[in-house]
């Protein structure tokens, strides 16, 4: 008994490959074959049904419809678009509209969310309570309802276009949206743009110089304030130097509507407000937990070293908080982008809305839906690729 080898189910040598169900590798293969088989079977069943149904109902397939004339109008477009353009271009307009609302929404939500998140940690009780009330109210109400609310607020709550509110000369607020003067074409605007770019470059150079000088002499230069001054100051100087033109393209009521100026449409406003307000509540939580995730010991260590609170925040807390914040923050960005599909409900022409119209006009539902999903999936995928890259870059070096 002591030395003879008892065997069950054969006596495989280590790494040997006798075929037995109690060998975990064999088992794994069998399971996987079964599972994959089942999935393939189901997939095949669905696809063959679909093909069969499509053929039976003689529904056209393929993406050639993308080149056909769309023949419907789109209210808002970032690139030129008219009903003469193709379905493909219409879809592109939708994608760009989605991106537009997402990008602006992301920026605004980040700003508001960060403010609220920091406010929740404020030592001022009132501010902290107010911020947490905001968070608790907003994130517990469906975003769609908030969207409807904002839309109704604009379209029912604001005066009709004829009696538009005119709080500042040239600014009109009505059911048709917010009309503001746009600067009329003038070389000064280009010059200001250039001046701004120059300021950005200068700020960068300044930062490097300040760093080098600090390394050399230890003196600290207030880069942040100087950079801000540059970025505001230089364009201002350019403006004044260009003769301070005051000519504006004023919106004026002509016929049915205001013409001229820039407009923020109610649909865009509602979707932007809805998404921003809603997502900001979540971002606030992300920011807050990121900040409290940084061990209190870090602050204490910095304090004990005599580092003032400004540099402590900048050099010790933020770099660590960002590691915690960025991953959930990106998934909030992703949520915001996906939620922008709610635009469908209030008539902002986002990609879902335009794809739905297209698939309806052409009857090619499967193609339409694959285009919607494909677009969102590529957005998600790019974000998660970014995330992986970022996580790798900032990962704390561990043993």
């Amino acid at each position: 008994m002591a030395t003879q080898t008892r065997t069950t189910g054969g006596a495989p040598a280590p790494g040997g490959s006798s075929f037995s169900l109690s060998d975990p590798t064999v088992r794994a293969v069998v399971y996987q074959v079964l599972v994959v088989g089942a999935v393939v079977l189901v997939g095949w069943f669905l696809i063959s049904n679909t093909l069969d149904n499509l053929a039976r109902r003689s529904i056209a397939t393929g993406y050639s419809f993308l080149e056909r004339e769309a023949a419907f109008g789109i209210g808002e477009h970032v690139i030129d678009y008219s009903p003469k353009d193709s379905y493909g271009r219409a879809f592109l307009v939708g994608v760009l509209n989605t991106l537009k609302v997402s990008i602006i929404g992301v920026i605004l939500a980040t700003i508001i969310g960060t403010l609220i998140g920091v406010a929740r940690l404020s030592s001022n009780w009132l501010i902290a309570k107010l911020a947490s009330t905001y968070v608790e109210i907003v994130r517990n109400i469906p975003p769609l309802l908030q969207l409807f609310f904002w839309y109704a607020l604009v379209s029912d709550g604001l005066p009709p276009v004829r009696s538009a509110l005119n709080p500042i000369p040239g600014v009109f607020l009505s059911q048709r949206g917010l009309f503001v003067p746009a600067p009329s074409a003038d070389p000064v605007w280009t010059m200001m743009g250039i001046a701004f770019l120059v300021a950005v470059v200068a700020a960068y150079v300044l930062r490097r110089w300040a760093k080098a000088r600090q390394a050399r002499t230890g003196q600290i230069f207030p880069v942040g304030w100087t950079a801000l001054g540059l970025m505001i100051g230089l364009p201002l100087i350019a403006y004044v130097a260009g003769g301070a033109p005051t000519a504006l393209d004023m919106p004026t009521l002509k016929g049915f509507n205001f013409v001229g100026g820039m407009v923020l449409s109610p649909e865009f406003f509602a979707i932007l407000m809805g998404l921003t307000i809603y997502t900001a509540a979540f971002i606030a939580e992300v920011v807050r937990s990121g900040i409290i995730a940084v061990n209190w010991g870090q602050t204490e260590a910095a304090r004990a070293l005599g580092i003032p609170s400004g540099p402590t925040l900048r050099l010790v807390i933020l770099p660590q908080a960002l590691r915690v914040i960025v991953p959930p923050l990106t998934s909030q960005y992703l949520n915001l982008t996906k939620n922008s599909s709610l635009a469908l409900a209030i008539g902002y022409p986002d990609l879902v809305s335009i794809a739905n119209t297209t698939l309806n006009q052409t009857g090619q539902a499967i193609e339409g839906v694959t285009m919607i999903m494909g677009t969102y999936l590529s957005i998600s995928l790019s974000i998660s690729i970014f995330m992986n890259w970022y996580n790798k870059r900032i990962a704390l070096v561990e043993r």
Partner: protein
Amino acid sequence: ATLDTVKSRGFVQCGVNAGLPGFGSPDSAGNWTGLDVDYCRAVAVAIFNDPNKVKFTPLSAQQRFPAIQSGEVDLLSRNTTVTLTRDTSVGLNFAPVTYYDGQGFMVNKKLGVKSAKELNGATVCVQSGTTTELNLADFFRSNNMSYNPVVIESNDEVNAAYFAGRCDVLTTDVSGLAGTRAGVAPVPDDHVILPEVISKEPLAPAVRHGDDQWFDIVKWTINVAIQAEEFGITSKNVDEFVNSKNPDILRFLGTTPGMGKALGLDEKYAYNVVKKVGNYGEVFDRNVGPGTPLKLERGLNALWTKGGLQYSAPFR
């Protein structure tokens, strides 16, 4: 085959408008009424001799074609315009036209607009995924005018946006405008429907390609209503005609058998349809006619004998 599926299921699944008074809309108890709805009921009567053996699926304009294509509904009776692409690439077969319509514009009286040609620069509310959306673009394009579309998916929302003042103009089929003005407008008299009709909009129920028998049933159920009016048969007096002298009528009502069987239906299906749903005129008057809030005239929808376009192919 669809007929077998429907029979074994026990009811017809019918896609209708979610909220267009006069054509398809539920009351607050969930009872569906409207012209389109009645033709769904007519098909149910033709098959089951029971106008309640039908279930309604409210569909937005965007959802309707995927829904009929996929088999989600057996019959699409949702003020759908007959067009070539819908017949071909969407893959629909259209039954006889139940309502000849045309696209029009409704504006607030206060704007003082008298003609569609004055609408340059206007903001227009329109439902997405409709021929209306396309005609609108065409109309403004051909008249060299610009417009600003507010395109919303659901009919309710479009109407709400218009009445809230989000748009200057509401556009859809004239019948729809009338329905909206009568049923949805807070103060109907504040709104006028402009005289221009910018398109032909023959509205007809549709079925998918690939099932001719089912198509025939729907087609000849609608023809029953038109033909009955031509014969002067109504739901009230249909029993008097059962023993009529006219062989056409006897064939029609199934007293002389043959027609129903050919469709795979009860011989007396036409009798049942007329008895339980009524003839075309009755359906029209009940839902959209002058006696209803919509106050629509027969116009193009009068029988061909009265100068209109409603015309049934002969039952023989």
